[in-house]
């Protein structure tokens, strides 16, 4: 029942999102596609950090693994004469495998490490991967790997623009990734992850193998990050080391925290912020009467500053992030608007109201706490 509802919700959401693309101009659709790609990564990261309590600063590297897996397979298939949907699917599977294997290795090492040590390991990875990619000949250095241009498929060509098509593909992949994560979260694995996060010893006493759960969490999270990398490569037709730097890794984490740790809605909000914030800040600075030299200097750096400030404000004011603040506001509004009255709808609200303290009893924990 629960799983079926998640699937229906995902399908409905996807149809609605695809409908939404008709209201957007090509550039917005491009931004939507990029946000969907980031969503794959942030959703995986939020489950990893929020649910299993492992901190990863290396998700950009996992995205890069997916991106290179996608690009290299796509290139090989193009020269073998394969195109269209089979090429896309095969390349996406390659992306998932590449990121999954890297995630497995990382997870195996990570299960032995705690808090800052795991963060350090993943940070090393995200520093190393672009450097390796830049110096390995087969990966074509700083320039990166280009893939064949993939236009809108024939029958749709008259109807939609390229960016809209890319947004559709990106949304579909993101929907698969997020639905998968939601199923994991709501299922038995999710419960085990939370148990391990809260108390490893207690979880082990209850018959859970903490190491196995942690590795699994890492692999699941890596696979979705890899999907994100694949989507990004599909949209931009190229993958290069410069796209997956340490700063992207950190921004992904910031987006997850700002959105609300452990919440998939929060991951979506974070991904949208990641794309929109630089653009918004750029638009504002362009509109201000500043000399062009100053504007150009602010262009690359101001969004980071705003992101940092937002992080500080949110952590201080609403530790649950945007998603947490939204849920709290909704719950407050509901209790205020409908005073407890007899009836079927009120009966359904009661559990929601009573579980709120339960939610507070289990606050979002940062992995460094244990």
């Amino acid at each position, binding site marked *: 029942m629960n799983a079926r509802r998640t699937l229906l919700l995902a399908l409905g959401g996807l149809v609605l999102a695809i409908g939404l693309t008709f209201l957007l101009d090509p*550039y917005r659709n491009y931004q939507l596609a990029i946000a969907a790609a980031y969503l794959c990564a942030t959703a995986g990261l939020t489950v990893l950090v929020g649910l299993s309590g492992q901190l990863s600063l290396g998700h950009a590297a996992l995205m890069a693994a997916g991106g290179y897996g996608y690009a290299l397979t796509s290139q090989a298939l193009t020269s073998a004469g394969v195109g269209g949907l089979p090429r896309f699917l095969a390349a996406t599977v390659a992306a998932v495998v590449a990121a999954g294997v890297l995630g497995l290795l990382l997870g195996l090492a990570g299960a032995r490490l705690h808090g800052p040590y795991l963060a350090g390991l993943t940070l090393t990875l995200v520093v190393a991967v672009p*450097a390796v990619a830049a110096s390995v000949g087969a990966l074509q*250095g700083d320039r990166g790997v280009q893939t064949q241009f993939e236009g809108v498929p024939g029958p749709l060509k008259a*109807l939609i623009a390229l960016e809209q098509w890319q947004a559709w593909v990106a949304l579909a992949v993101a929907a698969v990734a997020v639905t998968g994560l939601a199923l994991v979260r709501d299922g038995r694995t999710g419960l085990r992850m939370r148990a391990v996060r809260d108390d490893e010893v207690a979880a082990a006493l209850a018959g859970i193998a903490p190491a196995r759960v942690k590795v699994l969490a890492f692999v699941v999270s890596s696979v979705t990050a890899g999907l994100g990398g694949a989507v990004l490569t599909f949209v*931009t037709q190229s993958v290069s080391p410069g796209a997956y730097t340490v700063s992207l890794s950190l921004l992904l984490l910031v987006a997850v925290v700002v959105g609300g740790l452990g919440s998939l809605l929060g991951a979506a909000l974070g991904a949208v912020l990641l794309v929109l914030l630089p653009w918004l800040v750029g638009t504002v600075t362009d509109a201000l009467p500043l000399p062009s030299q100053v504007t150009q200097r602010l262009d*690359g750096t101001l969004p980071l500053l705003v992101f940092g400030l937002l992080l500080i404000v949110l952590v201080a004011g609403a530790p649950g992030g945007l998603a947490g603040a939204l849920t709290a506001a909704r719950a407050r509004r509901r209790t205020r608007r409908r005073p407890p009255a007899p009836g079927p*709808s009120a009966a359904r609200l009661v559990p929601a109201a009573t579980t709120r303290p339960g*939610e507070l009893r289990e606050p979002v924990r940062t992995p460094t706490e244990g």
Partner: protein
Amino acid sequence: MSQLRTLPTRRHQRRTAGTLVALVTIVPLAACSTPAASPGVDEETITIGTHTPLTGPAAAGYSSISAAASAYFDYLNDNGGIHGRSIEYVVKDDAYNPATTQTVVRELVQEDEVLAVVNGLGTPTHSAVLDYLNENEVPDLFVASGSPSWDQPETYPWTFAYNADYITEGKVLAHHAQQTYDDAVYCVLGQDDDFGTDFTVGLTTVLDELATTQTYSVSNQDVTAQIGAMQAAGCTVNFLATVNGFTALALGTAAKMGYRAQWLSSSSGGDYPTLVGYLGEDVGPALLEGFVSTNYLPFSADDPWVELFQKVNDEYNDGAPFTGNTVFGMSVAYTFAEALARAGEDPTRESLVEALESGEVVGNGIVPLEFGKDSRRSFGGVGITVVSGGVQDYVGEVYTTDTGDGDVVVYDGEAVALENDGIPQS
């Protein structure tokens, strides 16, 4: 957590259905909207844009180019513009990161609706948007890179190169070296991408053999190993396919190691004022004495073009340091204005490309531009400059050649002369 959510109510479902109906009705309306006939052109202005590094490690060497181009456009606008329209140059920072280039170029095309992308800088960065621009039929003019990939009129009809290509530069430098140095051991240090590879192809077309071919990666700020290998191989004449920062690094490292050799650089990394900026006023001039580089733009201090550019630089660019980048940026701006002047009273993306294909746009270089129906190649030849007594200037002949195995021949024509104070007339 999932128990927290309420099940969708009837009301919710009805509202969702309503939204869907609204979407379905809006869809055909939105799909019908068509773009304007010629983007970037209105009654008073022409909007064009570029991507260039303004932040990040590459910014130091190149950010002055777009500033110089903007200054020249301001000069043109103050003198009536082109066909009565002023030119607005939108400069977007891509930090020399191909991923960012993708975003900013889409922004230029879709948000700012530019008529053309002019002087997009860098091989790795611009390669990332080459397909996109041609797919969308946006003129992609005067790419600031010497990669031969911009000259593919069949595949990329909307793209036009600007720098003399690296193969030509390599061939001419090699030919010059053969004429000048006896019993030399030739070696090359190149960037580990198309820049280094293409330049080396040019060198080996002319020279039989290179004693060693060294490469460096932009992300690693240390070339001690490479310079050491060149010293060990006994190289006496070293070619450089390096950007300005790495030219300075190579010369500085060699000096520290007490290794003396003759250095010959591609124009992309051979700008004397910029190199002195990197090496410092105290040792720079001494290290660079006798340094050889190619160039294809006016550079001598008494050249009328240089005098004009210097004037524009003082008046419109706050008297910024006058370097090869300044000349480069202003030359690009002039060339675009020339193309625009020949593209008719009401320019479109198509008429702009037609003007360039007509071959009437010649630019302001020491050889005229070679654009035509089946050529996207800019300069077919380059001259040789040498630093002597702290002044970099042309010496000897200007050479032309092709990108294949054709001979390097002396160019007997004239440089393009300055007319009408650098304000192109139709």
